[in-house]
């Protein structure tokens, strides 16, 4: 194998805007779930149920879009929006279960999350079979097409990378920046962080620890649901069983990797997306596929080991709060 040739091909891939466009697409479900995780964990509630929430969101998105088009007589362009609404709502309802177990009943948050993940996997698979009569995957549903932003999408290089995407991909960028602002620059954000660091202190100054923790959990439900809708209404146009395939856990890692901040979560998701995008593009060079397939993992380890400082979790994370 000619090393110079490999180098040239890799350089071409790195210069190609579509590599970065794919990075943004692939990172979107990870980023949304990770930001949700950041909000939830900042209030002191561990959320390993992200995988299950995403799955519920993906399923609900497809389900609502399907019914909107086929039963409620809505048009093909409106139906996916109903799907998004359904995904966010069902994601919140599902995460409320996590809230009840973890906040209200003070159960072990990891155990509740794990139970919810298993429940989501079984329930969505079962409902697909029950509602559509076919096992494993729903029929194709109305979904989003990319909406290039006028003028901006014409900018060389940056245009296709940033401004030629489906709606939820844009939303992820806005939510990353907006979320960072909310969590670190607003009173409610301060309260959320206070509850996660020192719930007793927050309680004594009149902040309702329970209410704030529920809020954190619900935000993760909404964003996790949106992440799921990205998979079933943008990436592909149907729900298929277990289609999240571990993305919720990668999102959890991205959240920690991003030091429990929305912006950090987004950036680390971009890194995962970049590694994945690179992996899919470099395989066409004549390198052994085994070598290429390990690329995302190697990149992750290198960055984790080298570039990142110590990650300090919120002080009260994982500890149920009781007033007594």
């Amino acid at each position, binding site marked *: 194998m000619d090393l110079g040739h490999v180098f040239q091909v890799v350089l071409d891939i790195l210069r190609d805007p*579509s590599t970065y466009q*794919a990075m943004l697409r692939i990172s979107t479900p990870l980023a949304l779930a990770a930001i949700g995780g950041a909000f939830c964990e900042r209030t002191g509630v561990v959320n390993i149920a992200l995988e299950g929430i995403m799955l519920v969101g993906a399923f609900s998105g497809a389900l609502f879009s399907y019914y909107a088009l086929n039963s409620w007589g809505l048009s093909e362009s409106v139906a996916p929006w109903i799907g998004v609404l359904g995904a966010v709502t069902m994601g919140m309802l599902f995460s409320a279960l996590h809230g009840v177990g973890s906040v209200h*009943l003070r159960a072990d948050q990891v155990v509740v999350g794990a139970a919810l993940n*298993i429940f989501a996997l079984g329930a969505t698979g079962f409902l697909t079979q029950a509602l559509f009569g076919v096992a494993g995957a729903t029929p194709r549903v109305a979904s989003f097409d990319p909406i290039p932003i006028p003028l901006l999408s014409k900018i060389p290089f940056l245009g296709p990378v940033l401004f030629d995407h489906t709606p939820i991909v844009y939303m992820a960028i806005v939510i990353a920046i907006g979320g960072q602002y909310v969590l670190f620059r607003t009173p409610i954000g301060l309260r959320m962080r206070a509850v996660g660091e020192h719930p007793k202190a927050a309680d004594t100054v009149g902040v309702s620890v329970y209410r704030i923790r529920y809020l954190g959990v619900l935000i993760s439900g909404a964003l996790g649901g949106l992440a799921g809708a990205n998979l079933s209404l943008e*990436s592909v146009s149907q729900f298929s*069983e*277990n*289609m999240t*395939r571990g993305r919720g856990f990668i999102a959890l890692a991205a959240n920690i990797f991003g030091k429990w901040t929305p912006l950090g979560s987004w950036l680390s998701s971009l890194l995962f997306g970049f590694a994945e995008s690179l992996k899919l593009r470099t395989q066409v060079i004549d390198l052994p596929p085994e070598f290429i*397939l390990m690329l995302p993992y190697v990149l992750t380890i290198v960055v984790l080991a080298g570039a990142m400082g110590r990650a300090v979790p919120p002080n009260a994370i994982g500890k149920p709060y009781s007033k007594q």
Partner: protein
Amino acid sequence: MMSRRTSMVVGLIVAALLLVGLAVGCGDDSSGGDGYKAAMATDVGKLGDKSFNDGVWAGLEQAQTDLKAEVSYLVSEQQTDYVPNLTRLTEDGNKVVFAVGFLMTDALAEVARANPDTFYGGVDVDLADETFTPYDLPNVREILFAEQQCGYLAGLVAANMTLTGDAHEFLNDDKVVGLVAGMKIPSVDRYIAGYIEAVKSVDPDIKVLLTYTDTFDDPSAGKEAAIPMYDAGADIVFQVAGKTGLGVFEAAKDKGAFAIGVDVDQSAELPEVILVSATKNLQKATMQTVKDAMDGNFTAGNWVFDLKNDGVGLSSFHDFDSIIPQTLKDAIEKAKADMAAGTLEPATLVDDTLVN
């Protein structure tokens, strides 16, 4: 501290969630008469892949209709489910149990050894020991397909059509075709080897882009794997990736290009982009195995389904029949005859000898 009552409530809720999740997770769809029982354990691609697992299930459903057999399935969520699922189906009194997929090889051998009175059909399973020496078990039929043959036919279609850039708006003048694969396992590699060999036999200058996604159940990954291929000028991409491959069809639709389906005729998935499908007659193989077991004609060992016994083939071109040149149709028939006669034997391994 948590009161005793609260902790009990929590415990009960968690236990209930787990039970419900596990119970519905193992969706078990028994139906039909009280006759001969046959069942399948899916691999992790599960039902709904519109290809591999669904093909075997279609065979069982046919056995239910034609032979009045009582059929059911168990879904494997992960590879650790294989042995429990096969064991449970055996204990449920099934006379024939199908293990679907190469990944189930070791699990099947283990369960079959422990239950010598039950018949097993291992789809894509070729039993071999640690030193890769093949062996057989008296109650296991190893159902294998000559994927290199239908892969070869798919390659003929892809290569010839990519060279006729003016036959359809989806085609271009670049000499590039693609293949999105699932995991690197023998049956997948047989498809790939046949495909590449056929493409190169038509024109050695045609480039075959090949990507392993390393999954069989992630449609998003399949789509992201196919997009760079279409961007690089491929106008036809063959998917050999189970449920992951459904994403390849999505990419074809977005990019205005063709895809080739796998295992069963997948045209109904997205008729406007699926040019043709390379098929394995999973339904026939499954049905035949149930029938043989019922009639007392069960024979163990390797059963290869190929062009000689209508075990593999090419689906119809459906709406695209009119754009397929007669010369290509003739070439397909000739290749079929040659492969059935054994004068044409496509490669079965993806390695350095396969010039790409």
